[in-house]
């Protein structure tokens, strides 16, 4: 009993001691992401890209004459932990802006906290439209699911370099908001273009056996399968589809982008397509520089989409702070909203009225264990204004 009271006292005392030292000679920015847990690789990738940008910014003098310090909080891939993490960043570390998160569910959890504290939040890669609808302090540096789903549907049905399919099967991750969202918009566009969804199967994050669902899909005889999931399952799905004798192409979204898709999927992923934020073998100097610097800093690792978006998000935020000329949340928010043509590594970024980034999408095809650039889709063409 006495021990219990002692513990309570300790907690009480330390809570009073919890005050961060505020250094006036640096700008503090918060970052929260999933550094551990089921989607740990997304958080660590974003963090790595962000740190690369941070080094570049700080070594060229920082922003407003001060160095930037980034405080990282891990939300262990849990939405409730995201809320606590952002709350800590805002009230304990006194950050002036927050970068995060990759998963739309965690962005949705944390956004209200940022909104009511009037701290701008910039999500590098959450694609669910609801995230920025939370409030006018919430931004994102990437395109949204309606655009991505529609782009792939249009490409698959109309583009000559695509499979030119009319019958589609979908295999989506029922527990993943990203996957569910992409499926919805893909289905809409396919039906609007007169196509057919012949099979609609689902799996759960972490599953390793998809043969039952794939057998169902095979029975419906589709021309292509849309698999808008994360790379953690996609490699296996492709392999098992080939094992069952299905040679049709599989298609997906930016969740496919990772080395693991190739390592796990091997030749099963050849002939497949996916939409992405950038193409690693794009011939522009910005992409080449980014890839080279990333490889140099991180032991020859190839950057994935999360890394480049983290890099761009950090750059965008620094640029916005520069343009705002102050560390006031409202001014930074206004500067972010007026971002036009920011030269990010993943393309020129312009913020639209709904605080989503207007960026082109690239479509990649996998051949010989390598993703090749096939096509670009510009924002207006696929009707991202939604």
């Amino acid at each position, binding site marked *: 009993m006495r021990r219990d009271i002692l513990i309570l006292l300790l907690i009480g005392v330390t809570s009073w001691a919890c005050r961060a030292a505020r250094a006036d000679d640096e700008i503090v920015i918060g970052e929260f992401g999933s550094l*551990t847990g089921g989607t740990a690789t997304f958080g660590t990738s974003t963090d790595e890209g962000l740190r690369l940008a941070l080094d570049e910014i700080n070594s060229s003098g920082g922003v407003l004459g001060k160095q930037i310090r980034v405080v990282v909080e891990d939300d262990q891939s849990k939405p*409730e932990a995201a809320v606590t993490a952002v709350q*800590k960043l805002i009230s304990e570390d006194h950050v002036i802006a927050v970068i995060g998160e990759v998963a739309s569910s965690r962005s949705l959890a944390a956004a209200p906290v940022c909104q009511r504290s009037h701290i701008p939040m910039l999500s590098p890669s959450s694609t669910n439209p609801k995230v920025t609808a939370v409030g006018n302090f919430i931004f994102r540096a990437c395109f949204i699911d309606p655009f991505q789903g529609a782009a792939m549907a249009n490409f698959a049905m109309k583009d000559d370099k695509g499979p030119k399919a009319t019958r589609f099967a979908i295999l989506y991750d029922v527990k993943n908001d990203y996957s569910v969202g992409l499926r919805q918009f893909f289905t809409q566009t396919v039906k609007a273009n007169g196509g057919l969804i012949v099979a609609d199967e689902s799996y759960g994050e972490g599953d390793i056996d998809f043969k039952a669902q794939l057998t169902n899909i095979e029975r419906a005889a589709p021309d292509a399968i849309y698999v808008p999931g994360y790379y953690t399952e996609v490699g296996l799905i492709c392999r098992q589809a080939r094992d069952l004798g299905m040679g049709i192409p599989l298609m997906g979204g930016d969740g496919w982008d990772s080395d693991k898709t190739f390592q796990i999927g091997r030749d099963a992923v050849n002939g497949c397509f996916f939409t992405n934020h950038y193409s690693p073998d794009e011939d522009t100097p910005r992409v080449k520089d980014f890839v080279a610097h990333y490889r140099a800093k991180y032991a020859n690792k190839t950057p994935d989409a999360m890394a480049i978006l983290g890099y761009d998000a950090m750059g965008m935020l620094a640029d916005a702070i520069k343009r705002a000329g102050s560390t006031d949340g409202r001014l930074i928010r206004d500067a972010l909203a007026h971002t036009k043509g920011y030269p990010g590594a993943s393309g020129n970024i312009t913020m639209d009225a709904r605080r989503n980034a207007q960026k082109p999408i690239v479509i990649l095809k996998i051949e010989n264990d390598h993703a090749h650039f096939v096509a670009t889709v510009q924002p207006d063409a696929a009707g991202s204004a939604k």
Partner: protein
Amino acid sequence: MQTDALPRVRSWWLALIHNLWMPAVLAAIVWIGRELEFADRPGPYVMHVAMIAAINIILAVSLQLTIGVSGQFSLGHAGFMAVGAYLAGYSTFVFAPWNFDPNADYPDPRQLFANPGATLMSFVALAVVAGIGSGLILGLFLLIRQARRIFPALPLILITIFLIWIVIDARNAFNSPEIPVACIWSRGAIGLVHLYNAILLHSQSAGLWLSATLPEAWRKPASLMVAIVGGGTAAAAAALLVGLPTLRLRGDYLAIATLGFAEIIRNVIVTIPALGAATGLSVNVYWTKPSPADRIFEPFYMSPWIFGTAALTLMLIGRLVRSPTGRAIKTVRDDEIAAAAMGIDPTSHRVVAFVTGAFFAGVAGALYVHLDGYLNTNSFSFMRSIEIVVMVTLGGVESLFGAAIAAVALTAIPELLDNAERFLPAALTPQAHWMADNRFVLYAFLLLVIMITRAKLKGAIRKTR
């Protein structure tokens, strides 16, 4: 010779304290919660952690009732929390605005909580529909059981036939654009949904009238109160449903069965689009910062509600445990057969403990949804159930206060480790960062060490006696 035929006479002020300390403490806690919300120290982050800790207190104490006092090892507590959270969040979010607009995307948060009558009606509609549905299924089950008289294996055969019939029914209904008349199961299910919508629509006026009878200042707190109690009741009803087949089980089997039910509940919730499906349910209650001008029970800040409910839970469950019912529950736990021989019905007492525990879990869920404003089924996984079980175990057998303390400690320790660099001298910052990064490995390791050393200590103490 001493007789205790006469009751002891206490001084009047002792008797007053004995009866009034609970409401007094409750009021004090609520007022302190409100004051702390605006103070500069401890600040929003610590307040947030404290509120999470208070919610964990409710969870831990209610689970202590189920596990410690009643001896039923339930691993499905997070499932009941999920039921309470989702239903309370949905009712608040959808029905609480004064002008119920089914097409509104994001209702104005200042308009939320304005219509407690409608919130109440939504729960009533749910209760009616759920009651009819489960009543029908239960009736069917009882009929099948009666078939045992005709032929011992008949129930099993009948159940198999019904299952295959339902599957065929569902497939036919699913594959045709309009549900055929012959698919009675699917039609029945859709009919129930229509009934729910109809009751909702028709009760709107009744709800509005109810709300109008309350003075304006009371409507918002009443709305939240209805949501919380409604969430708790829904969780209790779910527990009744879960308990019916499983309360005959013992020990580990019950544990896994409750775990299974929690997973099934999660699986069902994630497929319902109205509850947000995979994206989760957003209940944006917290758009503006609370100010001292807001009245104390404004739902815009939750600390009075949460701290008050935590204290209330402790008091209520404490009272229950010390009451004759509580004693009966403990007797059933200790020796079921002896209790039955003494005329105490084991099943009903087990059910009471289980359902009460689930009620408070639902209450905790309802509070949680209004604290964070966002729900995702991943937050209610069995890892969450297990975290609560750990709090209960660390608290000690059947000690409610111990469970509460353990809840606070286990909520605080990962956060403390996260902030470790503040407490350690600057030279140890890299070590502090390592501790923060690996705090969950440390947590698991600490738990292991504590379990083993406690057992060894207990053994050592026993040997010295």
